């Protein structure tokens, strides 16, 4: 009962983290495209955050599973599968030698991912709201009842 809001706060932070990592990669790729970054720097920046992103996403999914949020778990599953497959095929890192050839594809992929995370963000927010308000309302009621009880007892006195 008390864990629920905390859990949603964690989901929220994780989701924010994923969005941030994706955004960072997209910005790096755009910079590369616009010639603000050289391919070495750009790909090393991206490659630094790819594994953290995958781990974070994995944790995100597993946490949903463990906490019994089936819908969210299923929603994050395809992305997790894609990540895993890329990792197994060792295609998850940007290849600095061929970066310009894959640039547009990689960028699109990340933009799609970003869109997905944003959608998830909205869902998580609603759940936070729901969970948060519910418990807050409940707690208010609860305390109100107690106070009422106290008052009534006082009044009884």
């Amino acid at each position, binding site marked *: 009962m008390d864990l629920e809001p905390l859990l949603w706060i964690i989901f929220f932070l994780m989701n924010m983290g994923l969005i941030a990592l994706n955004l960072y990669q997209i910005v790096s790729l755009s910079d*590369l*495209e616009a*010639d603000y970054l050289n391919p070495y720097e750009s790909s090393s920046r991206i490659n630094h955050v790819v594994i953290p992103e995958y781990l974070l996403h994995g944790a995100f999914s597993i946490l949903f599973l463990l906490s019994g949020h089936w819908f969210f778990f299923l929603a994050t599953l395809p992305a997790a599968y894609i990540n895993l497959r890329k990792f197994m095929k060792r295609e998850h*890192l940007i*290849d600095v*030698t061929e970066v*310009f050839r894959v*640039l547009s594809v990689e960028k699109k992929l990340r933009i799609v991912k970003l869109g997905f995370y944003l959608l998830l963000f909205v869902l998580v927010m609603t759940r936070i709201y729901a969970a948060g308000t519910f418990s807050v309302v409940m707690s208010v009621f609860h305390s109100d009842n107690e106070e009422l009880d106290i008052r009534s007892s006082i009044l009884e006195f």
Partner: protein
Amino acid sequence: MGTENPNRANFSQRPSTTPFSASQNASPFSSSSQVAGAVASSFRPYNPLPSSQIPPSFSSGPLAGPEASGFRSVHQVRLSDPAGPPPAPSYGPSQTRPSQRLPSPQFSSPAQVPPLWTSTGERPVVAPSVRPSAGPFSSTPVSFQMQPQPPTIPLGSPPKSMNTVQRGMNVPQSSMDSPFAAVSTNLQPSSPPMRAPFPAARGTLQSAFPGYPSQQYNAVPQTPPVNSVAFPPQQGGSVAPPPAVSRPYIGQQGSYVQSPSISAPLGMYSQDRMQHPASLPHLGTAQGLVEDFSSLSLGSVPGSLDGGIDSKALPRPLDGDVEPKSFAEMYPGNCSSRYLRLSTCAMPNSQSLASRWHLPLGAVVCPLAEAPESEEVPIVNFLTTGIIRCRRCRTYVNPYVTFTDHGRKWRCNLCSLLNDVPGEYYAHLDASGRRIDLDQRPELTKGSVEFIAPAEYMVRPPMPPLYFFLIDVSVCAVRSGMLEVVAQTIKSSLDTLPGFPRTQIGFITYDSTVHFYNIKSSLTQPQMMVVSDLDDIFVPLPDDLLVNLSESRTVVDAFLDSLPSMFQENMNVESAFGPALKAAFMVMSQLGGKLLIFQNTLPSLGAGRLRLRGDDARVYGTEKEHTLRVPEDPFYKQMAADFSKFQIAVNIYAFSDKYTDIATLGTLAKYTGGQVYYYPNFVASVHKDKLRHELGRDLTRETAWEAVMRIRCGRGVRFTSYHGNFMLRSTDLMALPAVDCDKAYAMQLCLEETLLTTDRVYFQVALLYTSSSGERRIRVHNAAAPVVADLGELYRQADIGAIVSLLSRLAIEKSLSYKLDEARTSVQFRIVKALREYRNLHAVQHRLGGRMIYPESLKLLALYGLALCKSTPLRGGYPDVQLDERCAAGYTVMALPVKKLLKLLYPNLIRLDEYLLKASFADESENVWKRLPLSAESLDSSGIYIYDDGFRFVLWFGRMLSPDIARSVLGEDYATDYSKVCLMERDNEISRRLMRIIKKYRESDPSYYQLCHLVWQGEQPREGFYLLANLVEDQVGGTNSYADWMLQLYRQVQQNA
């Protein structure tokens, strides 16, 4: 009539009423102009001498033509013609040009009546070519008047005046007897009205591109010949034998009608249209349409293709690659086609048009191509002004910029921005708006120019030429003799390394450990240091491993002398290649330079060790097939990226007889602008000369260091992808740590805007590099191409060399991520799509039944496509080529300049025994050697043939060869095993002559050393391996023969057409 003549370019025959046909080139670029008739290959620099003289009396009856099929080469009639440049109303005999007398009337072949030509609608081809006879005529002024032949020319001009007869042309039987056989025009019924649209179309083109060499139609109407025979004067293009292939506007149509008995020219010179005398007899059916394409008949009757193809009529590049002459001539400011070749010398004006051009649209750049003595790139030094560039798009000043505002401003030709002219660069404009100092400004007149770059083009002081050697000294290297040859070759090249006295040099050797050599100048003997900690490699004495060659020369000499003996007893079989590579990187990263790696075995220790992936037959044909051809370990890609970052170019020399994973090692060369040399089964006694030559050339050829290259283009066009050995540093900047004349780069472009509004697109290639002398320079190549709205024009201007180069690079790249089969199919698919599009273009107006049509410029597309599918990188499957060899060939082709690629795809096959036996060899010039079609039919068992693909020679000895020749060439052991015989000069004339020929061939193509393999007819499997498998026109092991391939293409083109 089974075939039409494939040698015709643009194949349009213009039936004209009179026997005289001629064309005139009306443009100022007369040198590229056409001759009215077929131009024989040996006359490449022909002058546009218009008007051919044609004998009068042809009967219009059934035509019989000498089927000159026996003539391999293009035979054409050359007629000399009297044409006065200025319009002369009357002809005097003085205007008659003496016709060139050429001694070979080739009409002796039996005449045969073409069976079906009238009914199938195929017209006999006639290609009387005009012989450029007199000097004054070569510069035909822009006057469009052709003058009919003066009456004074005797009708009976001897047949000598022609030198060749185009094959397959029909000459009326009657003409055979007459001295006019030379004319060999085919009689053609003509219908004048049909032709009308054509000239008009031309006219518009002309006006659209000023300065474009377009043709004018000149018709001199004359009294119709008595017999009312129409001669189809061909368009200029139809003339073109293979060499003339890519000329634009080849097909000029000018037809001169003239009757020999004419007494005065009528003086009707219409420029843009043909005029047909009203009295033209209308002899034929609807044959009057000018055909603007070449075609190949596939069978005598449309629909029944089984009749087959006359294999002799198939187009072949027997004259080698023909550069698109027009390209440079069309726009004088264009650079030579050595440096830049566009896949079509015209740009489509809209995306929809571009999408109908199914071939790659792009360019092949060879920025440092070797130029002949007189045509070196001029060097310009802007001392005080700084290099003049556009403020916005950074284009360098070039011949296409325009000066305005009295010379105070110049307009960039790429982005149209108006820039200020710096005060020091200012010059007045003359009345025509040109700068008065134009003749002193090569950058404003020449297509290629080199600027000396000032300090702002340097991020560090120009680097010295630097050569670093990474040499495998394991037991295989020592045993094969590689080590010794390499040491000797390096030593002998030391004097000629570029950049003396700044050149730097260093060495590392490795087996299971890495050996460093201190070759500091203060030492007398080199010091060797061994590092065996492979996991954490470090560089001892980082300062003394790389030294100035001129200072340390004695130490280096001592080192190279002792190198082979030092490892004589080495029994180490391991190879710590990865750590050695890292060590070399650490040593070189300060300066950059060239790293030459001599690798004998599969890297087996330390980082970057590779496993024996093997060439597994079972993998072929599966989804995993391509993984064999891509690098396995990311270590190498990462190293390659680092090398490129620090301006290090890597050249790989691989020698192993076993699998060495060239696919992985080659990435080092691929991304650093290097090259892969592969010597399978290296044995010093056999391959010594080859290695020596190629390593020597690698070390001593002129090299551009720490270069970057960018190609800019005008608005509306954008380069999208780049193909070759380099690494992209930004979207359009190629990093090339070392460039030399043997490297070419290809790129594809696309249209950014749906509609191009400009009438030209400009390109500018800029290569910023450090020369070996330590000067920072910018080499700039400029080009302009007209924007066209007509698909036919796009195809007409196609450059087969650039297209094939792009296609092969794309196919090889495709083979890295797909199956070989898919790569081959994609090539075929593109060819079919292109030909189908072209067919659709013409199908409306022409009856094409049973014919395969293609633009003259692309007549070799099918053949090269076939050759590409049969080339080493793409051929067959597992059993056909070893994996390493395939990968090495792939890396090589990715860097090959156009000419060498075409030669590799369709090698020369030349019969030698006649030359060897000939008493005098005064005519040993290149032209005399006749290239033969690459099929087993060309091989006569009583001859010696040489097969030359630019990388190796195969000498093929026929079984019936006279023993005398064999003995004199090979010595007494001529009958023994040819694999052991070595070719050397013997003390007799035949042998000397052979060696001279071979030497000459080698000198003509010095990038690689062509090792000579001797093959005896019937000696399997060597014959099959060296020669028969490479005869691209033959059906070898499940592949198509040329004729089958054509049929297959034809059927596919027909589908959904």
